[in-house]
């Protein structure tokens, strides 16, 4: 028997995750992502490889979606209108750029789901975690609109299709074991990774990535999706039990990177902010609504609390009540810190964060302001930047990467002046501080997970080919585990564990209930010899491991397990027969 893994997407590439695994005759599809970089049929996984006839219901047992990973496209439109006021050429550029990057990599786990279920016609069950299920329809609908209304492409599926698809979705909780059918059993484990989601003013950071464990008969496997082994302030590290796995399919996005502790970076950030406000300066932190801002907010709120700082922190986007409701609902998906503090005070009810009002901009004295959008690409953050940048005691802290073409990107090179358009030039005298971050696991995290799970085989997906090759070598040499990195549409077959049924004799069963060792008493002669050599401690009783078990085939060709005492009896019988 074997486990066959057919990689339909994310084989030696990033994006379009889709892996079909056949374990002992049961076929499971893990993730059903799409590639946004291409607009033809290559956008979707080649579903015909699953069933040439298109009879997916018999070919597949179920679909499992590990998580969604998406920055909603609507917020791009939001930026679009803001940027347009500044420069016409800039928006077009960033629109296309944003669209390409973000959708490309962030619909890669369920983008093709509706197409597959409604258009191709799969009627079997779909499993995903609660948070994913809660947000998937919003995201899919939004994506459809962008595709059709903005790009003017042919409609692949409509809103009804999304609703229909969602009806087939069964939500699972962490560590809940689900018996899909007689043989197939699945269970979700916390993966620590999160997804980012913004929907106009309802701005949420959504958590809910899971690793899925699937078991058919005696064969077991885990598909990780994206995961994170290092906890941050509001999301914990991945957690899984030690399992006897035949196969582990893991992502390998950062297969060659080792990330340093981010504590040092946080410390620098806090020091910079503290120094600035204690000198009476103002701090501007341009962020995408929440997302990263939320983590920084937790960090700063803690710091303010600890240091008894009275300088106000303003939040322009504001944590809406709705966002809080979502968090309370999804508290199990957050880190230990947030769980700890939840009963006393909601970690997202920041004590030191006040609501932003326009008057704040001109109020003298130190303050910290979180303003959207990030990268200072327009809106409030740009407005505030224009006002505060000419002052030397202002600090602009950029949390994360800034795309080329944005003010944030220009600012990183610390120019003396920034030209927004021919009529607007800003003197830049402020200090700039950058803080980098990424939610994927690094190569050490991957190695640690593999070491902990010690599977018999590893398949790498969702990564660039050179990184996969180097990681594969490392896994093979350090742990001696066979490792594969199939390309798209390739199949890898690994042997699976099969237990053979055998009858056990009564004597054997009886022995099994007792400890499987026997004490052998040394004879007095042996003892006296030993006493001569060392009179300290020599065990007079020695443990003899009594594991000897014999498997015999009886006349009806059935296997039977007997205890070794019985073997002698049976052999004796045979001899007399002869």
């Amino acid at each position, binding site marked *: 028997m074997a486990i066959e893994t057919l990689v339909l997407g994310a084989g030696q590439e990033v994006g379009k995750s889709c892996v079909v695994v056949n374990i002992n005759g049961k076929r499971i599809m893990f993730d059903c992502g799409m590639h946004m970089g291409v607009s033809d049929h290559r956008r979707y996984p080649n579903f015909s490889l699953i069933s040439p006839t298109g009879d997916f219901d018999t070919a597949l047992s179920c679909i499992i979606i590990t998580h969604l990973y998406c920055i909603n496209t609507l917020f791009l439109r939001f930026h679009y209108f803001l940027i347009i006021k500044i420069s016409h050429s800039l928006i077009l550029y960033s629109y296309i750029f944003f669209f390409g990057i973000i959708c490309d990599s962030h619909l890669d786990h369920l983008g093709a789901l509706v197409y597959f279920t409604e258009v191709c016609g799969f009627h079997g069950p779909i499993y995903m975690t609660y948070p994913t299920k809660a947000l998937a329809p919003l995201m899919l609908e939004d994506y459809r609109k962008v595709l059709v209304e903005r790009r003017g492409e042919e409609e692949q599926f409509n809103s009804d299709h999304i609703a229909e698809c969602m009806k087939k979705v069964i939500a699972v909780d962490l560590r809940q074991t689900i018996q899909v059918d007689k043989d197939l059993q699945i269970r979700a484990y916390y993966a620590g990774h999160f997804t980012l989601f913004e929907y106009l003013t309802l701005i949420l950071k959504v958590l809910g990535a899971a690793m899925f464990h699937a078991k058919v008969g005696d064969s077991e496997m885990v598909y990780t999706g994206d995961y994170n082994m290092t906890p941050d302030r509001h999301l914990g590290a991945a957690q899984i039990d030690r399992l006897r796995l035949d196969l582990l399919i893991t992502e390998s996005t950062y297969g060659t990177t080792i990330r340093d502790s981010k*504590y040092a970076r946080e*410390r620098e950030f806090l020091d910079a902010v503290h120094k600035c406000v204690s000198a009476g300066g103002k701090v501007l932190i341009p962020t995408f609504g929440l997302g990263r801002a939320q983590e920084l907010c937790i960090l700063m709120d803690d710091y303010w609390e600890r240091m008894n700082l009275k300088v106000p922190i303003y939040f322009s986007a504001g944590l809406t009540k709705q966002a809080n409701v979502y968090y309370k609902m999804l508290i199990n998906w957050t880190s230990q810190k947030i769980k700890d503090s939840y009963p006393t005070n909601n970690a997202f009810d920041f004590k030191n964060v006040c609501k932003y009002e326009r008057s704040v901009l001109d109020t003298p004295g130190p303050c910290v302001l979180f303003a959207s959008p990030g990268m200072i690409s327009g809106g409030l953050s740009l407005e505030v930047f224009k006002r505060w940048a000419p002052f030397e005691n202002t600090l602009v802290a950029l949390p994360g990467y800034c795309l080329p073409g944005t003010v944030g990107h220009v600012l990183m090179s610390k120019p003396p002046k920034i030209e927004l358009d021919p009529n607007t030039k800003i003197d830049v005298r402020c200090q700039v501080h950058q803080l980098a971050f990424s939610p994927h696991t690094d190569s050490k995290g991957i190695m640690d997970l593999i070491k902990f799970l010690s599977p018999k085989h590893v398949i790498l997906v969702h990564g660039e080919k050179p990184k996969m090759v180097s990681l594969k070598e490392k896994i093979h040499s350090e742990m001696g585990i066979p490792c594969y990195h199939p390309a798209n549409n390739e199949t890898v077959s690994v042997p699976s564990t099969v237990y053979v049924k055998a009858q056990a004799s009564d004597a054997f069963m009886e022995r099994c209930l007792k400890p499987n060792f026997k004490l052998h008493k040394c004879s007095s002669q042996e003892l006296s010899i030993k006493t001569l050599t060392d009179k300290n401690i020599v065990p007079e009783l020695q443990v003899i491991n009594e594991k000897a078990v014999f498997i015999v085939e009886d006349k009806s060709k059935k296997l039977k397990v007997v205890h070794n005492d019985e073997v002698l009896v049976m052999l004796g019988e045979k001899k007399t027969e002869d």
Partner: protein
Amino acid sequence: MLCCSVNFLFLCFFLQNNTPESIQPISMQTFTSMMNEILNPSTPKSTVSSIFKTLIHSLLHSPESHHSQILKLIADLSSHHPSLAQLALDSLQSMLPQLTDPPSQLTIEYLDALVNISERPVEVDDSLFTSICLAASFPVRLWMVRNSGCRVMVRPELLYPVLMGMTKEPYPCLREEALEALVRLGECAVFEEVSLVKGCYERGVQLLSDNEDCVRISAVRVLYVFQVALWGLMLASFNVDTKTYWSNEVFAMLCSVVRDMNMKVRVEVFNGLGKMEIVSKELLMQSLSKRVLVLDQSPTEQFVLLASNVAGALVHGVEDEFFEVRKSVCQSLRTLTVLSVEFAHAALNLLMDVLNDYKVEVRFQALETMHHMAINHCLELQENYMHKFLDVLEDNSSEVRFSARKIVRLMKLRNHLLFKSTMDVLLKNLDSYPQDEADIFSVLSHLGRNHKQFVDLIANEIADEVEASFEGNREFNSARMAALLVLSISAPFLNADVCPIPPVIFSFAATFLSRICCAFSDVMNRDTLLEYLIQKSSSMVQPEVNISNGEGQNPLAKDDVQNVAGNEMIHSEITINNGEGQLPLSKYNVQNVALEMKPPNDVGQHKRPVHDSVVLTYINYILVKLPNIWPKVQSCSANEVLCSLRHWKEELTSLTFDSSAPADASAFALLYLKIIKLVVEVWDHLVRKTEVVSGTVELEDKLEKLDGRAKELMNRFIGFSAEEEISVLELILLTYTLRLCRSEICSRNFIFKRMTIIYLRTESFLKLRSDVASGFVAELGSLIRESSNGGASCSSLAFDNCLKLFSPKRLMIREGIRHRRAELSIPNNCPDYPLPFAPGLTASIPCDITIHNISSNCRAWVRMCINDGFTQHVYLDLQSFEVSGEVRKISYAVPYYRTPELDSFNLKVCIGLESLFENVTPVQAHGGPKCELVLLCEEKIVYLSRVL
């Protein structure tokens, strides 16, 4: 009430009728009324004993289903009526053998009752133990494993193999309990064979990858407990390299499981890392970096193998989601930072990150670790860290603030700016946390005492501000004023020089007396502080008066002197003025003693002559501190104690003297301190059997050194008073006992013999003075009397118990002590001007010898050694020396007979005295000294060169 009496009547009826012949099963109701009677304290004894009898009878005759209730009643009865406990134990024990074949739940219930009744662990014979451990029933086995080694005593020789077998059980909780029982076994250190310990350790390693969390936790524990056991065993038989190799292996093994998915496993791993005793520096550094390090020199084979396991282990711990793990990492850093200075510096970076943790517990632990590092002299706060560290002083948790201030007390700031910013933060602290005032004042007083030079720089500034405030020219902030005053007055405190602090400051300070006196409570009380302030401010009137001339009243009065010496963090030098004897010197009153603040590198450079009696007083007040620090040694604060000892030693060495008497006393005190220091260093190892003070100490070396020093103390000093003599003898007994705790059987008899001699001497002294022997000596005496065949029959445990009774005597030395020493000089000899010799002929070595305090009936020798190990002794006839008082002088050409066939050679010459105390074994019979020699001076090298 009615119900009770009905019950009682019923019970009486039952007891009367229930004779052994006509036994009836006990009903539920009877049980309840028996229980009532047992619990009721006024039940007559006769009733209780008849209940007891009935219960025992019914055990024999009632159905097995009732037994558990009956046993429960018997256990309760025994705990309420202890007089019956022994009887109950005997009866139950006699019934036990009938129940063991095969062992069942009932057997366990009997055993459980036995264990509950007995106050001591119950001994179980081998056959019962094995039959229970091999029983088919799982709960029966579990009970036995869980209780073995704690409530049930089994021979370790039997227990070990059974437990090892149990670790392979299919039931996870049995595996877990078996490992826990092994840990208990390991902690008792019953193993004396490396292979057993190794076997256990290897099983622990195997089970680190067990599927069950609970088993993995216990496996980690086994690993580090046995690492300690293994290390202890190897100490005797292997060299340092082997030990380091093994410790590195264990370290890497523990590091490899730091990413376990179970939080408790991770916590346990870091607890284990905190118990490491030796780890190579490279591996320690690797644990701070997630990337595999590229070393400067070619890495060892072991490092290459282990590096990837160790990589970033501590960083992962600090990044952990659970505060329990982060806290445990900080704790483990306490011991790890002691192992390598370089690592300590690198780990500080990690600790600075932890100071941003959101959990108070973690921040607090990080600071405690830093404090521990500071005590061990491995905390170096660079300027870039100082900023962050000062932030912590403003933390809103009071524990964190107190802990941070504890570190400030020990700080030695490098420059004026840092000092200023620290001071500012503390003053700001005062505004934000007025409740901390007392602590802040105390920190400021330490800061001032430690940084006199910086306080001097801002003295005028402070004076201006204070004066302006007092005169009403500024807003009066009393807390700030008090703080500034504390800082100013603490700088010249204990300092004899004229300081730039204007005397008016001291007058101002006096007005705040009640508020600021707590800041100095470690060195003086309120009254003495007032005296000090008055004295300092009085110089306002006569500014040219130098207080150090002894005219003013010194603030240090009787009680406070001891405290001054206890303030170990002050690197101070004793400067004692001549004072011309105007002031009466009482025993403790060191009126002329003043401790002057100096940067540490200055210590020992400026030696000044001091008055004899003052020195003696000073030495005494150091010595009287010793008994006070002893509880700290016993409660494992050895580091702190060592710090104090080191400091006192420094002070003693910095003294110079006019005459020989104080020099002799000081030499005695110094040696006494050295011995105590060595004792403290080995104490943890031998008595507490726990962490070592420093990672790479060689215990054997230390014991060897201790032995030598003890001999020196015994032989090189004379003129003890009886009290001194007893203290010295007791100390020597202690060193022997320490040795006996450790020694192999062969050397034990020898040491024991020597100890017996010293003991007899002590005993006779005590009898002479009709004194009572201390607990330690008495216990040792009984041990010596018990053991007829030398020390071999006594277990090291017995000596351990003696040691626990030891505490140093309150010792006060008088002037009578004389130091036996010699001065040897060989005129006109150096490598360039060697003495001539002809091979085969006797060479003459001209020596100028001066010996002190040695009477003519002593046997002194000149010892000459050549590099090949040959030693020649020449007897010194003390009669022929020139005598002037206690000093004898001679210029003497010492003959050296065995001149080699070489062009040139070196000879090590020194003077030795035969030690008459312990002539247990004659050392050399052929013409040389009859007893062991005690060297009286340093060895001198004589250069000889062949003539033609």
